[in-house]
């Protein structure tokens, strides 16, 4: 039989060590300007405090992170990639996707372009099936998880003026602000450029570009013009042949990966430090809170 209380003392020793280790981090980095404590604290080698101060600091998100999906716009053609084939609506487990197919007014034959596209994010369960099974890479999962707003009742009221105003004021930069309601997005609300997609999913984008059929190099030039039009800084060239916009990178070079994530003008540059397992992604600017003045 051990001495009564010895186990407690042993345990208190652990508590004490944890207490001291809480400050180790602070001392270790004192005087150094390490911008992202979130990255540091996420590392298993870190023995000190693991928490960060949300929302002042945010955890870097891995590339695979998924939240309510968006539609990818092909910036070279200035139209959505979606062909309204309906697979995403079929694989959606909670059935939160509604697609209206366009019909040719004369022949009444379907046109591969959605007339309307709704995602009800109040139903969406963020499973990612739509993005996974889309054969055209036309729908992708977003990374912005801060889509709540105030007051709650507005989620379904069209509140058209409010939404329109919010678009003008750039209050809801995330999903442009669907006409149906704050959390029910229509086609315009869902559309984001492929540049944004390439920014948040660099390796996914690289795969897409590699899978695409190599187009003649001559075509690359107009794209390069189109891409900056969407508000880009051209990505840093990585390889010898690496050229500007995401669209043109593919045909020009066998190497495809945009070395640095392409940064859209709306968003701040991604953190420079990249932890081994995660690619920090650009966060869209913080949505202002509507209703709080």
């Amino acid at each position: 039989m051990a001495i009564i209380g010895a186990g407690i003392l042993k345990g208190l020793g652990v508590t004490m060590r944890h207490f001291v280790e809480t400050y180790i981090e602070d001392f270790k980095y004192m005087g150094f300007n390490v911008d992202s404590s979130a990255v540091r604290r996420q590392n298993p080698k870190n023995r000190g405090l693991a928490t960060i101060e949300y929302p002042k600091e945010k955890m870097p998100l891995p590339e695979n992170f998924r939240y309510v999906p968006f539609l990818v716009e092909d910036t070279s053609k200035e139209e959505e990639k979606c062909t309204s084939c309906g697979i995403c609506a079929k694989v959606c487990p909670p059935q939160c996707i509604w697609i209206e197919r366009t019909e040719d007014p004369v022949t009444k034959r379907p046109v591969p372009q959605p007339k309307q596209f709704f995602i009800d994010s109040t139903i969406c369960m963020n499973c990612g099936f739509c993005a996974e099974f889309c054969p055209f890479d036309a729908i992708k999962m977003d990374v912005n998880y801060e889509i709540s707003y105030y007051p709650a009742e507005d989620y379904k009221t069209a509140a058209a003026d409010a939404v329109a105003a919010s678009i003008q004021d750039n209050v809801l930069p995330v999903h442009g602000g669907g006409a149906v309601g704050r959390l029910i997005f229509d086609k315009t609300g869902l559309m984001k450029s492929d540049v944004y997609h390439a920014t948040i999913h660099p390796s996914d984008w690289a795969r897409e570009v590699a899978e695409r059929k190599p187009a003649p190099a001559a075509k690359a030039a107009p794209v390069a013009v189109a891409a900056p039009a969407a508000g880009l800084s051209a990505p840093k060239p990585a390889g010898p042949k690496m050229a500007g916009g995401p669209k043109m990178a593919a045909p020009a070079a066998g190497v495809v990966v945009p070395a640095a994530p392409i940064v859209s003008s709306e968003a701040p540059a991604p953190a420079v430090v990249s932890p081994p397992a995660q690619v920090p992604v650009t966060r869209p600017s913080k949505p202002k809170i509507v209703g709080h003045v």
Partner: protein
Amino acid sequence: MAAGAPAPAAPKPAVAAASPVSGAKPPAAPAAVAAPAKPAVAANTDAEMADITAKFEGLISKAPYEGVFINDPARLVEVATYVRDGLHFSMLSSITAVDYPKDGVIEVVYHATRVPSGGKPLCFKVRVPREDGKCSMPSLCGVYPGAEFQEREAYDLYGVRFEGNPDLRRILMWEGFAGWPMRKDWKEAYFEGETKPFETRWPAGKHELAEERVPWQDNVTFPKDFDPFSYTSKPDGNIYESMTGNRNSVQGFPDAPVVVDANGMNQPQADEFMDELKTDEIIVNMGPQHPSTHGVLRMVVKLDGETITDLKLALGYLHRNHEKIGERNTWLHNIPYTDRLDYICGLANEWGYVLGVERMMGITPTPRVEYLRILMAELTRIESHFWSIGFLLNDVGAFFTPALYFITERDFIIDLFESVAGSRLMCNYMRFGGVSRDFTEQQLQRAHELAFERLPRAIDELDHFLTENDILKARCIGVGYLPADRSVAYSLTGPCLRAAGVGYDVRKADPYGYYERFDWDVPVRYNADVYDRYLVRVQEMRESLKIVQQVLQRMSKDTKVGDIQAGKKAYNHRVPAGQTYARVETPKGELGFYLVSDGGQNPYRYHIRSSSFINLNSLKEMTVGYKVADSVVILGSLDIVLGEVDR
């Protein structure tokens, strides 16, 4: 290895010759059987089925796809007793019902298991007519006490009356609810279509809120003579009535001692002492909003002084009829829904479901997939045990200091899940014959850091921090005792059963995946109290870590990078008509999926044998005789998650 283990490792015809033990006496204790290092597992149950067919001639006929029919429901108890005592299937894994409106019958399906040796479960079925009044059959509570909650569930959702069930009330739906929600002809509020995908989504999809399409009141029905606006409820009359007058009547064990002390601590109050005090009995509600009940569980306890004399559970606060949703879904749709069952260990649940569907479709996953699944499932086990031990300590009173230390460690695992699968808890990682994404080099490196540095250190620290703590020992040793034979009879599974000396682990007993290719053990302890459950969990974390380390060491050698899908990836699976009962060992116990396919895109029946739910069945017997404060600890040691309990 103690004597008295009745279960032969492999089906032997000799068993049939042995005279069956008749009567209602429970089987001899199969207590304290250490986990065999390599159990011989029966490949099927053909021999047993031939045996009972011969024994009960004329009564048994072969059922399509799986198991046997017992043609006369009245003789069910007789057959079940023989299955238990003659064939040594001492645990009833699962009870469920399937509705066949075309035939006008409801089929009640039983799966019995040999414990601890395992092997395939023995399936027997009974058919009863669907019409109200005729839809009744005998209860198996006398043979398998663990049947109580599951029978109540089948009664609640299908309307099958189990005559002889001690407490046949609704369990998931509320008192006063009309209708049988799992029957095929029952429609939920905002009913949209029998099966997904709904036709209103494409090609002419116009967004419409369900609430606006079907206004409230159009979709609710009330019993005759019931006016919801003038109704005032008699608060829970039924649950209190069920608690008066049947003190200590433990079904199946009328003469069982209520409390046995293991280590000389926490000796419960002797009855004579309480009699002298002349205390009053009072009924106290704990929950559904109570920090100790881990969610929305409500315990109604009858107290004599401070000692619990009876306990009832009110469940279903989180009930969403997951199974009905599952039957409307396509096969693929269900994968992310299984994450939401036991949201602490979503990846383990997914595996159970895809395992069942893969068996029915005859898909064999690639080696890479099997490695990745084991890796993810064992990391899930570690993080779930971190969580459960942390919150057990909360229940003991060490409020949040240990819990937060362990949550920190758990978060590293969950960060890895997020980086691989895209979500922290709702991973949606497994596919039929595959997984959604492979590990990148960086992710493997992170997994290495965790498995070889961070987690071993964290588990050692946990052990150092808690195991010898005198207060923890005083609160846990000897509390919540439930011996091996009764644990088995109550269908208790998971670490709680293994802490009672029964080395039953589905990973060894009915192997799946590549578990047999790795070197690991099933930790077993014998005191069957809260402390041993804690120790079993700690040891299981170490064993899981062993598996994870082996996987990481061998994965690059044995498998091909990127080989993560067997066959072609599809979204519109048609599963061949058939039935299967697939089970996996989640951190909480045996999670079973009973799936029936009619060959279509949607499951005809999608039943979940939930370990959290069935483990709660034995809570009453673990708790009666202890103090109120102990009941909190005992519940914590069961490690339930209400998402899976209420489904």
